């Protein structure tokens, strides 16, 4: 078991290195001259040359990658072309809102989606099942900014229950922090809820046909106990997997949600960086999010043995 944990953690290191290599080599595999694209249409040749030097495009790929990677290992993600500030400092300033948004969305999406999926599988084929699965298809098809605008229009502009836009830091009080994040979290959570609910239903349907479920019914166990203790526990591995994989959707969606709700997080940073073509910042954000994603999935991988004791390594 301990050996497995060590091996599994060790296995993520090459993946992380590959991610870094990919993110870095985008500069070289993108068609055209990235320095000219980043400098923009009005740039003088001197500007282009300055950017080429600051990105290190004048030196060989491997040497440049080695340097860059060495700096990353020391926690240095480079310097912004636009503001000349260290990218790590810019990310540190903006990380709180994004992590808050993602954490709230994750918790509330799982709390809604898993029971919904369980309910749908229990009442498979009924009206409730169809309603939940219908919602899942619609939720999967509504782009996050569409849901965002719809929610903001109904609950913030028309009903004035919640603030329309903006963000209050956690240090200013839990309540205003939470109120500002409710609508973005619901908007961001839609796709995620749909994904988890569908997977939960499919996994539960499989489990509910097993003999031990019939045995539990035969010995007179309550339906709730059967569903949530016997069945859900056995269906938890695919559900946990999809929760982990779905975080990629959350990360992508957060970028847009922050634009819709004017939340000054990493998403805004990315969007501003795109408009200024500030590649080091984009590189840093992509790298950071990929690391979060890989680490989260590592944790879920390690959780498998807790969720399902039959899995032994």
């Amino acid at each position: 078991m301990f050996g497995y944990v060590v091996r599994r953690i060790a296995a993520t290191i090459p993946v992380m290195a590959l991610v870094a290599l990919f993110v870095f080599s985008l500069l070289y595999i993108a068609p055209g001259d990235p320095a000219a694209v980043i400098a923009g249409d009005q740039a003088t040749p001197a500007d282009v040359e300055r950017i080429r030097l600051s990105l290190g495009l004048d030196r060989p790929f491997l040497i440049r990658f080695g340097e860059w990677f060495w700096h990353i290992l020391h926690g240095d993600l480079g310097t912004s072309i636009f503001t000349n500030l260290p990218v790590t400092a810019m990310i540190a300033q903006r990380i709180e809102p994004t992590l808050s948004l993602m954490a709230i969305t994750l918790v509330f999406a799982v709390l809604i989606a898993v029971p919904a999926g369980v309910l749908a599988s229990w009442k498979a084929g009924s009206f409730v099942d169809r309603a939940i699965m219908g919602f899942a298809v619609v939720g999967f098809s509504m782009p996050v900014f569409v849901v965002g605008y719809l929610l903001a229009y109904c609950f913030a502009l028309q009903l004035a229950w919640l603030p329309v836009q903006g963000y209050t830091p956690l240090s200013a009080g839990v309540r205003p922090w939470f109120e500002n994040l409710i609508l973005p979290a619901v908007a961001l959570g839609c796709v995620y809820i749909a994904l988890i609910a569908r997977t939960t239903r499919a996994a539960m349907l499989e489990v509910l046909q097993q003999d031990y479920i019939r045995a539990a019914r035969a010995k007179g166990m309550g339906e709730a106990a059967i569903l949530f203790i016997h069945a859900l526990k056995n269906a938890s591995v695919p559900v946990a997997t999809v929760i982990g994989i779905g975080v990629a959707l959350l990360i992508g969606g957060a970028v847009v949600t922050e634009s819709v709700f004017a939340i000054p997080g990493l998403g805004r940073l990315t969007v501003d960086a795109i408009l200024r073509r500030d590649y080091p910042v984009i590189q840093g954000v992509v790298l950071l999010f990929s690391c979060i994603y890989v680490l989260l999935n590592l944790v879920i991988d390690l959780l498998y043995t807790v969720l399902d004791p039959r899995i032994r390594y």
Partner: protein
Amino acid sequence: MSVPTISRAPERVAAPPELPDLLPPIRIRRGLIGFLRRYPTIAVGGALLLLLILIAVFAPLLWTVDPTALSPARRTRPPSAQFWFGTDMLGRDIYSRVIYGARISLTVGFCVAILASVVGLVIGLASGFVRWADGLIMRMMDGLMSIPPILLAVALMALTRASVGNVVMAITMAEIPRVSRLVRGVVLSLREQLYVEAAVAAGTRTPMIILRHILPNTLAPMTVQATYICASAMIVEAILSFIGAGTPPTTPSWGNIMAEGRALWQVKPFIVFFPAAFLSITVLAVNLLGDGLRDALDPRLTKRP
């Protein structure tokens, strides 16, 4: 869904023994109508998608005006008989822009679905058949899959000039790993099948095995996957355009129209509403089609209650 039964032949006719229904036939024999009635989601999704394709193809004939024609005198007019969906900040007719925008979304969706399928198929086949390359290719795909797709597309778009072609390329790159893993899985499970082993033992060359045994079996899961890729590509294109990293702002695409309406959405919500509604309906149509195709093509699911 019930397990399809094979109708029995009359008594005196010699009938071959019934085959185990590993692959229940898609009952096209009942006719197209019967098929569509059996899978209503395919009917609804397909019809909606067909309608949207027709709208995109015949955009110039649908009472549209030039979607890029500026007219500063009538800015941000609400929907009316003259401007069905209103006008935007530069006085352009939103109805015409939305109708023409269907072209961009559908083009991007279909191109990404086809390109990602073809490239993913090649990589997946290589990975499944070339043993020494398998580990390397799959680690590469793991790395690529660890970057959230939208961020990968954003990073690529930041380095290239905004154009529809580059958007297609950026989204395709993010989708390839999923297809190649799918194809590899199919190849690996088929290689274990007796008939493939028999073909290998009989000296069939690898290209022939791929053509005769592997490709037909990848077709069904890949079709389903391609529809989902198409839906997600349309969403990603809209997101990229919305945050300013997608199709060039001069091109009317749904994401661009919404990006332009963003500053005014609290006072002029209709600018954002119409492209958003079209985008949602299009994605919904493709997703419905995908769900229906999955039910129709995946034999394992037909046995579920």
